[in-house]
């Protein structure tokens, strides 16, 4: 091969082949080109490949190859059927029955609902009277009361609730929500009255004494701060109502204290016998 020939690029060769295939003469397909000579040689070579003689297969050839092919097909078919039609086997870890699966679903749903309820209740505990969750908080408190059956424990819970109502009153007064402050103050005094009644009917033991002392602490809470807040926020009507509630409780407190305070014991020592005349010595 002449090494001085200029080689055409693959694109030039492809263009020449395309033109030749479209029916152009060789000279026209090659064109005027520095690599025309080499291009012509390559084109001729490609045409020699195209012109290679071939012939149809003999009948014997067809049947021999056909038999081998179909025999191979039958063998593959057996494997294919085996792979795609395996008998069903019992699983090593079978799925639970329909009923058990539904039970699991229901249990999971109940668990989810329980978790959601507990979360909601916990969130409600932090709520205040102006919150949407506050009614839920009050219901939770009723449940807490129902769970405590003895008078002393009920009184202890009511004192905690009274404390809570007192804090609610402070918060509402600070926010200038007089109506809600009055409601909370009223609830505070109601809880104190109920706690006093529960303690009054309870047996006097050590736990009673503990709760009794707590009662004194809770009922002695000053309302000066609340009054100041209401004044600052110009809640005069609420201020008047709260003052009235305080005065009302002050009256009730005497009767409560009377029930809670043990009767004063008689002085120890021998009492002088009354004189026959009835006069005391």
């Amino acid at each position, binding site marked *: *091969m002449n090494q001085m020939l200029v080689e055409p690029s693959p694109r030039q060769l492809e263009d020449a082949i*395309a033109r030749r295939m479209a029916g152009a003469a060789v000279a026209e397909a090659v064109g005027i080109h520095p690599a025309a000579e080499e291009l012509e040689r390559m084109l001729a070579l490609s045409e020699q490949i195209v012109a*290679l003689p071939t012939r149809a297969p003999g009948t014997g*050839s067809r049947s021999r190859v056909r038999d*081998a*092919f179909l025999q191979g*097909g039958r063998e593959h*078919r057996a494997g294919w059927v085996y792979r795609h039609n395996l008998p069903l086997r019992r699983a090593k870890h079978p799925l639970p029955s329909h009923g058990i699966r539904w039970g699991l679903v229901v249990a999971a749903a109940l668990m989810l609902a329980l978790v959601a309820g507990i979360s909601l209740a916990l969130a409600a505990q932090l709520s205040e009277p102006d919150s949407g969750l506050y009614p839920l908080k009050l219901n939770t408190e009723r449940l807490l009361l129902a769970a405590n059956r003895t008078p002393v424990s009920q009184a202890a819970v009511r004192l905690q609730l009274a404390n809570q109502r007192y804090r609610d009153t402070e918060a509402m007064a600070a926010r200038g929500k007089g109506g809600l402050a009055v409601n909370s103050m009223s609830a505070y005094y109601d809880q104190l009255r109920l706690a006093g009644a529960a303690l009054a009917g309870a047996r006097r033991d050590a736990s009673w004494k503990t709760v009794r002392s707590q009662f004194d602490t809770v009922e002695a809470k000053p309302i000066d701060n609340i009054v100041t807040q209401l004044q600052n926020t110009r809640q005069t009507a609420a201020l008047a109502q709260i003052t009235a509630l305080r005065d009302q409780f002050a009256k009730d407190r005497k009767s409560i204290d009377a029930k809670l305070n043990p009767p004063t014991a008689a002085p120890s020592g021998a009492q002088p016998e009354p004189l026959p005349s009835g006069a005391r010595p």
Partner: protein
Amino acid sequence: MAELGFRQVALVRSAPARDRGERDLILRAQRYEPEALAELFDGHFEALYRYVHTLVGDATASEEVVRLVFLRALEGIPRYRRFESGFATWLERIANAVLSESDRPTGLPAPLPAKELPPAARLREAIRGLTPDQLDVLGLRFVAGLPADAVARSTGRGVGRVQALQHRGLLALGRALAGEPDPTTPVELQ
């Protein structure tokens, strides 16, 4: 230069695989249904034989190559996905792969075709001495008569890559026929 002219896809080719009938046939053949396999064989045997015989030139050798191609097709047909390229082209590519295989150790240049052989036999021997990629492209391009973009689609190569392989293949073929060793093929180290 002899004015040989190009034949316009002279081989008997079946309808392209985009034909729904052939697609369904192939899908059935993928389950090795005997009737589908027989129909596929009958539809493609002659065209494949002619393709192989063009490159081999001997009836017995052609039959053996065609037999190997069909047996390999049985192995590969479950993975066949190139419906748009045509089943015939797929078979021809398998034939190219079979023809490229030889006992020649990797890295050694192909033996040059003997000068005493007739021109067609020399050309066939030179073609079989090409690299597998070059043989694949030249076979599909000039024996099967596919345009370059169809060769690119059916082989998964870019058109530029097909043109480059065609270019290098023809150059290598010209050198082999001229009795010159291919300078791009590495020589065995002693």
